[in-house]
């Protein structure tokens, strides 16, 4: 150990850490060949390094980590300033309102495909009914005149469809003496006639 100077010790450490360049590596190899003390130091350092690495890896093995309790995880991290997706909430509200409007609001008589019957151009002679053509799959709406001079939308979809299924199982004895079970399902459907929507009648100046 006495023959190991500071420079050689550093070179051995750098070799262990993979920090030697080509020239330094050659220089160290030459020194190791002629200096048994240097070889012993390298071997000793390698031995202790391997032991230290093994100890640390064992100690801090990648065990699954029960990191935080559910209470902590329930809290989202606190962010500074505006969140990046600040528009998400108002956007979602607007989309929801639009969706409700599209689903529940009937198309008005100003639609592109409107066919009126009995219209003379005067308010008093407003059409008795305005049929609105709707896209395939959408229940058609009719705007119907009401006594106060306005019009109300009426759809032709049954307000309610009641379905009932009677299920019966009957046993029949065959000629060979076997019993056959037959299941009979009877479906009853009752539809209510077209109903008026809940939309307020439109004014007579339409």
């Amino acid at each position: 150990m006495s023959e190991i100077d500071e420079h050689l010790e550093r070179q051995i450490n750098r070799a262990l850490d993979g920090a030697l360049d080509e020239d330094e590596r050659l220089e160290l190899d030459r020194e190791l060949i002629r200096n048994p003390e240097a070889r012993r130091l390298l071997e000793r350092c390698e031995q202790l390094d391997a032991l230290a690495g093994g100890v640390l890896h064992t100690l801090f093995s990648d065990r699954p980590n029960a990191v935080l309790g559910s209470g902590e995880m329930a809290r989202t991290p606190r962010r500074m300033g505006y969140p990046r997706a600040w528009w998400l909430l108002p956007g979602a509200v607007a989309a929801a309102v639009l969706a409700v409007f599209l689903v529940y609001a009937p198309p008005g008589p100003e639609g592109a495909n409107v066919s009126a019957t009995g219209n003379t151009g005067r308010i008093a002679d407003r059409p008795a009914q305005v049929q609105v053509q709707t896209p395939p799959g959408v229940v058609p709406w009719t705007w119907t005149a009401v006594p106060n001079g306005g019009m109300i939308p009426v759809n032709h979809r049954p307000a309610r469809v009641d379905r009932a299924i009677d299920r019966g199982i009957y046993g029949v004895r065959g000629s060979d003496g076997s019993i056959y079970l037959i299941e009979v399902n009877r479906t009853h459907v009752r539809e209510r006639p077209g109903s008026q929507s809940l939309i307020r009648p439109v004014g007579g100046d339409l």
Partner: protein
Amino acid sequence: MTMAASDNHDPELVVINAIRDGDRHAFEAFVRRHGRWVKGVIFGVLGDRDRVEDAAQQVWLAVWRRIGELRAVDRWRPWLYQVARNAALDSAREVSRNRAVAQPLADDVATSATSKTPADALIGEEQKELMLTAIQSLPVLYREPFVLRHLEEWSYREIGELLGLPVNTVETRLVRARRLLREMLQGKV
């Protein structure tokens, strides 16, 4: 240039942003990937394996709560290091309040080798126990780079960037750490 380009493609940036948005799965995956490193940092500072797990819990708790305060997301590693280091220092202060007298270094090695607790038995062999005790006995300025080097195999440059030290200083500290370990373990391992 290469360094900057590689930083820009740091795959952890996506994960960090997901955690900032409250993604728990991303957080758990992040903990799995960096749990060992965080424990290594804590151990490097603390030198007490018995307190590493508790301190690591504090680190992840702080990360989850405070990751929104991380301004430069690409600097998440130094930030995480600081969080881990602070947790380790807090734990060390707590220990120093509870422990009046510190054992001399040589005595510590000798005593730990002979008095094994049930937890120690899990670690296993006597040589490993001696080595662990010796690492724990290193001064913190040598232990920190030594643990980072041997646990994660970080280069001098990486260790220096993290600890804010020149590469030469990192190298010197590693040389001295090894020298101290050789001296402590002479005739024992």
